[in-house]
């Protein structure tokens, strides 16, 4: 069996090689198709073409063809999948506490270095003193962000998520810098135990 296949392949190779040799050495004459009188008249073809374009025109005019989404009025939002990677954002838990503990792993993993965190210390008298740190400043430069989702993957506290916001706009570079408040506003509250490594997120 194996021998058969290999011999077949060899034979094939030989044929192809031979053909290419032929192609290289002689010009190929492509025969012109012989047209009948209707095709030579050319007018029926024009009329058929006109009929096709008119059909398209008519269907657009009557609103039967629906291919274009009128973007600002109609949006994808309802059909976005759960694993959509939009703008990264910080989330709060049910008690309204910012989950981020300012470990700076996302800052280190971020390929375009879009994230900048300045950690602050939680005083020892505080109820959550064992958390030790909180983000005093948390900035994501949305001009730099490449929506790769590595920050989300690396976060041990499940505090940063890529949300479904995709239209991030601004008039200046400063506008495109998402500060902590903006990030929390986009993020909102994440309920329950978030199973980070489930199949979707």
């Amino acid at each position, binding site marked *: 069996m194996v021998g058969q296949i290999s011999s077949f392949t060899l034979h094939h190779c030989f044929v192809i090689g031979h053909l290419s040799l032929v192609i290289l050495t002689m010009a190929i004459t492509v025969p012109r198709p012989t047209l009948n009188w209707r095709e030579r008249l050319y007018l029926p073809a*024009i009329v058929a*073409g006109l009929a096709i374009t*008119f059909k398209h*025109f008519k269907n657009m005019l009557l609103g039967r*063809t629906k*291919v*274009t989404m009128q973007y600002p009025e109609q949006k994808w939002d309802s059909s976005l999948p759960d694993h959509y990677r939009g703008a990264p954002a910080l989330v709060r838990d049910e008690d309204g506490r910012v989950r981020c503990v300012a470990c700076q792993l996302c800052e280190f993993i971020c390929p375009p270095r879009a994230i900048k965190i300045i950690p602050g210390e939680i005083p020892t008298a505080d109820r959550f003193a064992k958390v030790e740190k909180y983000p005093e400043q948390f900035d994501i430069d949305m001009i730099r962000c490449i929506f790769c989702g590595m920050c989300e993957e690396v976060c041990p506290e499940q505090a940063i998520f890529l949300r479904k916001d995709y239209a991030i706009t601004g008039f200046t570079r400063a506008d495109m810098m998402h500060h902590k408040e903006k990030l929390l506003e986009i993020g909102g509250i994440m309920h329950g135990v978030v199973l980070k490594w489930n199949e979707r997120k």
Partner: protein
Amino acid sequence: MGSFFIITSLLKIVGILAVILTMVSYAVYAERRVSAFIQDRLGPNRVGPAGLLQPIADMFKLLLKEDYTPRSVNTFYYWLAPCLAVMPAIITIAVVPFGSTLFGVPMVIADVNVGILFVFAIASLGVYGIVIGGWASNSKYPFLGGIRSSAQMLSYELSLGLAVIPVFLVVGNLRLTSVVRYQIDQGWFIAPFVGDWTDPWKWLLAIPMVISFLVFMIAIFAETNRLPFDLPEAEQELAGGYNIEYSSMKFALYFLGEYAAMITGSAVIVTLFFGGWHFPGIPDGSRGWIFGLINVAVFFAKVAVMIFVFMWVRWTLPRFRWDQLMRLGWLFFFEIALVNIFIVAGLMALLPK
């Protein structure tokens, strides 16, 4: 004659100029929408309701662009060419009757007795705008565009002229108002439904008229540089042809010229073959000014339909190759038009008076 004639003529000139310029800007809009619809797109629909204010936005854009003159151009001809492209297209409309009468004033600016000759004489000047523009730009692509345009004009002008001869054989007069008058009495040339329409001779005569119409329309396509004969422009081969070196309002003038030529071409086709301002059942302006207005509206509606056909053809057919175009012009349309003349002349001789 006298002051009344001068004042009414001036009013007609201003009025028709306003209508033509408006039609040009909306023809550009219509072109974009029609092409979009044919290609299952939407086209410009953002500026104003259904994008109807788009021409104004376009105009402001073109006015505010930098008017750049390349260093190596021949300045005088470079400036002259866009004007030459627009002028003939607009002048031609002067002899076309665009309505019956309004308050007793005939709705044609100049009812000259050499009407169609005037149309041909002026319309063929349009090629100078392209040729001079192509030469004065001192650049390769515009130059090729200009050369193509002149050769194309030579090949199609001939069949254009020959194609209308049957019309004037039948009418017996070169005046465009009498062409319309004949069609009101005897029925439109390509569809003689008016009057005694059961007369088989009329329908026999309509066959060469349809051929004549087709040849004339195709020649007008070539004359106005529209696809499938837009070789002087040929975006893919010549990157825009004669208008490459032009910017801002000078470029806009070329654009204006193309569309004005299209409108004028449509107006001439409508006048010669579709009964001009006449529509069966609608009386002319001597029965009241409202009918006069309706006649004008009918004329421009017919022109609009013709313009749609222009666009429809443009977005259906691919461009002809250079040799195919020459072959078509010299070997087919010229002969067809020539034979057609003899057929009509023969029919006229046989036709019972």
